[in-house]
């Protein structure tokens, strides 16, 4: 390739960069800037003698130690709930995605119907859906009644205002985030590879374990991230379905610190801790599972 040709070649390559410019500008304005503002706010100190919500710029690093000491339990609980939610959503979402993408391949109508069903919850508002769950799980609701009638639940027990209700609500609300990426991935799975597996003495289960599952790992990775990250920061499920004692999640604390206590530095510090913690966990996770299986 001559120098002129090479220059021409790289100029064509560079053209693409101009198209990402608006995106970068958008992110800088609406993501990077708020994060910086949040970071600054998290170090603010109360104005001496000032009223509620009066803070001034400072470098008050003790804000961080303070919130960690006060709120490490809800923080850990958030990650525990998010983890359980992610696992539950994976266990429910993968088979659904597999059914629609692989088993129903070629049956366009059935596929379309099931896909609509998967996305259907998105048509109603998040809060409304969660409120509906509250009714379903309430003491005089159908589920509790049935479980008690079957003696699967002791008479005095509840489902609302329990950790189970919170995790169940989150699993339900985030299920499409798990199912859709896995579906998108399995959709592209080459059916001939499954045939090759069965031709080479692998039972359907072995073919799934050795061929389908490894090949769908990029979808699983995307789905688990899309579920885990919002679940860790969620506060709606916890406040509507939880009990404010042993189900409190970090999102609730941030919300109440900000809106009710007007303790902006603490809220910002907590939000930043949450962000960094998620980032570290996600990076560790992607390093462990991502690069090896992503083709």
């Amino acid at each position, binding site marked *: 390739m001559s120098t002129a040709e090479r220059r021409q070649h790289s100029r064509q390559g560079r053209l693409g960069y101009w198209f990402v410019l608006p995106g970068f500008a958008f992110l800088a304005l609406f993501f990077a800037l708020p994060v910086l503002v949040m970071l600054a706010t998290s170090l603010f100190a109360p104005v001496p003698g000032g009223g509620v919500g009066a803070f001034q710029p400072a470098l008050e690093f003790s804000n961080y130690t303070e919130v960690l000491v006060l709120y490490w339990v809800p923080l850990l609980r958030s990650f525990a709930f998010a983890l359980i939610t992610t696992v539950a959503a994976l266990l429910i979402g993968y088979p659904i995605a597999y059914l629609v993408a692989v088993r129903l391949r070629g049956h366009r109508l059935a596929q379309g119907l099931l896909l609509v069903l998967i996305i259907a919850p998105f048509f109603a508002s998040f809060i409304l859906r969660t409120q509906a769950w509250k009714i379903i799980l309430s003491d005089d609701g159908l589920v509790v009644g049935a479980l008690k009638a079957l003696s699967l639940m002791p008479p005095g027990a509840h489902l609302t205002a329990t950790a189970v209700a919170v995790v169940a609500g989150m699993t339900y609300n985030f299920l499409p985030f798990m199912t859709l990426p896995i579906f998108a991935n399995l959709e592209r799975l*080459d059916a*001939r*590879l499954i*045939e*090759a*597996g*069965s*031709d*080479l*003495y*692998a*039972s*359907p289960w*072995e*073919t799934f374990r*050795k*061929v389908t599952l*490894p*090949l769908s790992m990029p979808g699983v990775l995307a789905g688990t991230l899309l579920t885990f990250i919002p679940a860790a920061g969620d506060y709606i499920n916890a406040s509507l379905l939880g009990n404010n004692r042993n189900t409190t999640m970090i999102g609730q604390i941030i919300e109440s610190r900000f809106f009710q206590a007007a303790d902006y530095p603490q809220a910002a510090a907590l939000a930043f801790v949450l962000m960094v913690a998620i980032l570290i966990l996600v990076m560790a996770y992607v390093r462990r599972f991502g690069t090896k*299986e992503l*083709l």
Partner: protein
Amino acid sequence: MNAVGSMSPAPPETGTPATRPTSGGLQLRGLVKRFGDFTAVDHVDLEIPPGGFFALLGPSGCGKTTALRMIAGLEFPTEGRIFLGGQDITGVKPHRRPVNTVFQSYALFPHMSVIDNVAFGLRRRKVHDARAKASQVLELVELSHLADRRPQQLSGGQQQRVALARAIVNEPEVLLLDEPLGALDMKLRRQMQLELSRIQREVGLTFIHVTHDQDEAMTMADIVAVMNEGRIEQLGPPEELYDQPETVFVANFLGKSNLIEAEVLGEDGPWLTIAAGSAQARLLSDRCVSRQGRLLVGIRPEKIAIAPVGSDDEGRHGTFADRDGEVWNTLAGGVVSAMTYTGVSTEYQVEVPGIGSVEVFAQNLAGDVLAIGDRVSLRWRAKYTFGLAGDEPISAGAEVEPG
């Protein structure tokens, strides 16, 4: 073998009487596969002896892959039964069949290294030393140095050899090869053909080799089946198929044939006398599909001797016997209308009045090549003539692209 009947409901017999399959080998009985109202495989009956090298030859879309898929268990036949070693395997799941496939699309596992791909089948069957065995087979296909690569880092030909290794390593009772050498260059192709033949002889596996390359089918296989529109047109050893085709499709698809419309005049001992235009000729009646009415008379281009007018054959028409009692057919009054010189031989197109265009391949033995416009006479040993049904379209199989 008595278990055959009890294993499954009686096959929907199609024409052939319900004979018990003989031991060993692979048998297809009345195999039909329909997709909707399209019939991809149409009543195929085959018997492939154990340890045989069988080639399935046919144009694109004639149902070769579909037939293989039914043998592998990847497609369930609409009708008919499949027997392996006397056992009815029609309903057996693919992973329980001692059958492996080299897929037309390779279907290598992209998330595994080459060596893991090759060892896959061995590991599923918990074979001891899977990796070592896989390495040996990789050596056989000359890919040892790429064992740790991913398939997508290989060239098309290399991928094909991995696919081959991945199937062969399992030493299945039947190996199905769906155009396994299609992506290889000429040199590698020849080499792999020899390798395949050698492997087949050494391990004694039954090979079913689908190919569009008739040279490949003819040189490698013990038995060749020519397939067309879902049916087996003809089946036999390569020489037999070439020497005595039974349908116009086979005559045209396997090599080239001159086919001339003719009418049977009479029978004389083993011979039939026929008339084509103004010429008469003879052919052996047992090389002819019928003994009366209209026929298509065929002769292979290389069987015809071409001589310039002026030599001692001049003026001789029809049929004559030479001093050794050999019967010859002659066409006189031809004119060379086109020629292609290929070095070893020359391909002539000769216009014969009342007959049409006749193709002749002449070996360049003496070096005296004829020219366009030369007047020639043609002759060939009558015993090489074959007769086909007269109602078949004369160009069937001539223009199709081999698949």
